[in-house]
């Protein structure tokens, strides 16, 4: 029996305080994933709170034979993030920073804006592609686990990630020009 399963059993037996060990372990990856999916650094912690609260309430339905606890938790986080995206207003172009001199490596403003441009390109990706991309690139989850979270085949995940990468590269080229 893994340590996580032991903790889960303790919680299910009424030791609510043991749940904090799971929260401490997963709070960073869960909040980070939500922030990168929704692009909302303010609301990500509140959504993260909801994820753990839901996980606690539904803990009895977690089946360790079907998936890892982290996969199950990421699935809840994915659903909460998608719900948050449905409620969220789209980012207007007026909120985007103005162009800066990308050719000057010392230009901190340009550096910041490149980050903003990448962020915008990420947010412009279709939800499913963004989800797969975030889980693969930032959370570094294996394709099998992402496929389980998304409930699709590995091949679908691979193609979503490839398409996301191509779109990001194309968007960056068109926004900043060839900055080599």
């Amino acid at each position, binding site marked *: 029996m893994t340590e996580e399963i032991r903790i889960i059993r303790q919680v299910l037996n009424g030791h609510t305080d043991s749940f904090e060990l799971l*929260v*401490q372990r997963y709070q960073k990856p869960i*909040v980070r994933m939500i*922030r990168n999916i929704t692009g909302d650094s303010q609301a990500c*912690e509140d959504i993260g709170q909801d994820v753990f609260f839901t996980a606690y309430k539904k803990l009895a339905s977690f089946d360790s034979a079907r998936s890892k606890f982290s996969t199950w938790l990421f699935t809840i986080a994915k659903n909460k993030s998608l719900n948050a995206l449905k409620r969220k207003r789209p980012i207007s172009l007026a909120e985007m920073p103005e162009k800066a001199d990308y050719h000057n490596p010392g230009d901190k403003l340009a550096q910041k804006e*490149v980050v903003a441009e*990448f962020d915008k390109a990420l947010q412009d990706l279709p939800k499913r592609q963004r989800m797969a991309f975030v889980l693969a690139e*930032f959370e570094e989850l294996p394709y099998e686990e992402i496929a389980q979270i998304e409930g699709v085949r590995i091949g679908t995940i691979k193609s979503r990630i490839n398409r996301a990468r191509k779109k990001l590269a194309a968007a960056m080229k068109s926004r900043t020009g060839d900055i080599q």
Partner: protein
Amino acid sequence: MTITERYRAWKEQKKQIEVSQDFAKKLMSRLYQHEQAKSKPWLDSQQFFGWLSGHFWAKAGLALAAAIIGFVRFVIIFCAALG
């Protein structure tokens, strides 16, 4: 700086995250509240009478139900006495 280098820098930045120090504490107090609410009875008598006193139509409905029950009981006793 090439686009690949900028992409790598961006990726590293996206991996950074700082979660509030009280994140777990906040969540745990919410869970304890949830557990407390679960162990409380759905409706205790004090809560019920408190709720009733604030609702006119609930009071009227309760009085009407009591009157109907009383009347039916009276009819049953009356019929039993005659029969």
